């Protein structure tokens, strides 16, 4: 069952990758796009390799780490509403990136950019956890996340407005709503190492997350070092989110939705849900990135708008369905 699911999701991602390589203003067929990757076909190769491949790879990487992070955070906090987006981490990561970028500290293609975004994400998660306290309910956690996210979003807009920047509005829109448009292979290189690191940490946490289904004390009695596990997941979540936001702006709700799609198919095991959730996240973000290119509009629809349009109703649906038990579950 598990293997079939993984294989099915991988096939879906491959199909969506192919679609992503063929979609755009220049009409290139799937066959040509595949050939253009490996052979030099002139302009077709330039378009496929330099324009469409980076955004496709980024959609896969970012979708993967968001899905994986969402599943790990939900497992850690034993709660289906947990996600970096719910904790305001993408907005805070965007703020970190914007601060170093718009005050001229670094160029747009520097390692300092993901580093600042990671610090921003870490600060927001730490702040939310600090305000909410250790023994808290998910309601408190979500409320503090909402506050931190709004604050970071406002601070981002302010920072861009204050910087000597003629394109401030466009830039604010990019950082707050996210986009994979016009990304290059340099962006892929900036994000990939961090995403690989975060993935490794999260996958290492898998056995501990399984035991945590029984609560912190029982997990500890089963030999899990809960404090170390919590630190590992939180740091990995910040690294993955920060690196992603640094190259694509804040994209939310993929991590919230993806785990729910796969959990019933892995018997709700928080450990076995990780990889399928990552793959589902990759498929979701790829599909969204294909959709923004197909939706007829003047300028391309921002991908963060689409993920929020789909993700927020989903979030509300989970709240409505689990209202009764969300009231008193400690996070």
């Amino acid at each position, binding site marked *: 069952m598990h293997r079939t699911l993984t294989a099915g999701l991988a096939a879906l991602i491959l199909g969506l990758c192919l679609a992503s390589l063929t979609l755009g203003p220049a009409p290139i067929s799937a066959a040509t796009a595949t050939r253009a990757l490996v052979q030099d076909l002139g302009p077709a190769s330039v378009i496929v390799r330099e324009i469409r491949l980076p955004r496709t790879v980024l959609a896969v990487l970012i979708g993967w780490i968001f899905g994986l992070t969402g599943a790990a955070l939900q497992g850690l906090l034993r*709660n289906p509403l947990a996600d970096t987006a719910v904790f305001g981490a993408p907005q805070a990561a965007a703020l970190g990136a914007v601060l170093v970028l718009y005050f001229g500290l670094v160029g747009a293609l520097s390692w300092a950019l993901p580093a600042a975004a990671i610090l921003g994400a870490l600060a927001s998660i730490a702040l939310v956890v600090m305000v909410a306290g250790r023994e808290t309910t998910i309601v408190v956690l979500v409320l503090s996340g909402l506050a931190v996210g709004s604050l970071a979003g406002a601070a981002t807009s302010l920072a861009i407005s204050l910087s000597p920047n003629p394109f401030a509005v466009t830039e604010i829109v990019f950082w707050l709503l996210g986009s994979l448009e016009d990304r290059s292979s340099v962006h892929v290189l900036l994000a990939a190492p961090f995403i690989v690191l975060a993935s490794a940490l999260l996958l290492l946490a898998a056995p501990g997350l399984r035991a*945590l*289904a029984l609560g912190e*004390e029982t997990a500890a009695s*089963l*030999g899990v070092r809960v404090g170390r596990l919590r630190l590992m997941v939180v740091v990995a979540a910040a690294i993955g989110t920060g690196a992603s936001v640094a190259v694509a702006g804040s994209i939310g709700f993929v991590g919230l939705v993806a785990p729910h799609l796969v959990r019933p198919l892995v018997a*709700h095991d928080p450990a076995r849900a990780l990889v399928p959730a990552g793959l589902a996240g990759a498929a979701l973000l790829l599909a969204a990135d294909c959709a923004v290119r197909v939706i007829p509009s003047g300028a391309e629809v921002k991908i963060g708008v689409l993920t929020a349009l789909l993700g927020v109703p989903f979030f509300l649906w989970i709240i409505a369905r689990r209202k009764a038990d969300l009231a008193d579950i400690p996070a």
Partner: protein
Amino acid sequence: MSALAAVNLQVRLGWRTVLHGVTLALEPGRLTAVVGPNGAGKSTLVRALAGLVVPSGGEVTWRGSALRAMQAGARSRALAYLPQGGTVAWPLPVRDVVALGRIPHGERPGALSREGAAAVERAMAQVGLKGFEGRPVTELSGGERARTLLARALATEAPILLADEPVAALDPRHQLIVLDVLRQRARAGAIVAVVMHDLALAARFADAVLLLDRGAVAAMGPPAEVLTERRLRESFGIEARVTMADGDLVITARGPSSGPDFP
């Protein structure tokens, strides 16, 4: 030397000292009932014995060496702990929840050794969960869920079993079944300690009763020596009649005591 022992164990939670120097020894082959009024420190004592809280003084030892110095993995194989009123976060099937008890042995649901699978089956059968294997644990009644979590602790097959109120949510029939299982575990050589409120059940099933009162051991010994009318008055604040009938201890509570300690 084979006992699980505490020497002058002190535990502070926040500013409050919950255990004031508890000294005791739990022997293999015996079922010990830990009793005491609300807030006496029973749960804290069991958590400290399980190595889950850092004592502010004293030490817990097993087979002569400090429990907290043991590797986490080795300790989890030696000691199974069942917290009070546990819940499961996800709608996992009952069999998978019970299989989580095999984690200390490096096994997991869906990848159990032959021995592990047998332990899981045995644990489920012992607490009467036959036919529940595939049911989502979140859809069970309180008592069924409590038995599932107990089966999880049993499935570890650890030489020490510490259970915090394992029968509180159970109907009378399952209380008897579960306590009998725990006593069998003890008879097979395990150290078993069970926090419970039902003094009649404690008197009936336990080999030894540990009476905890205000964070200290008020008495420890055979049920008939510990559960006396005077101690029930002093520690629990109840007026009770304790008699022997056909070799069984019969405790009849008649009403709450009144006095300076119990306004």
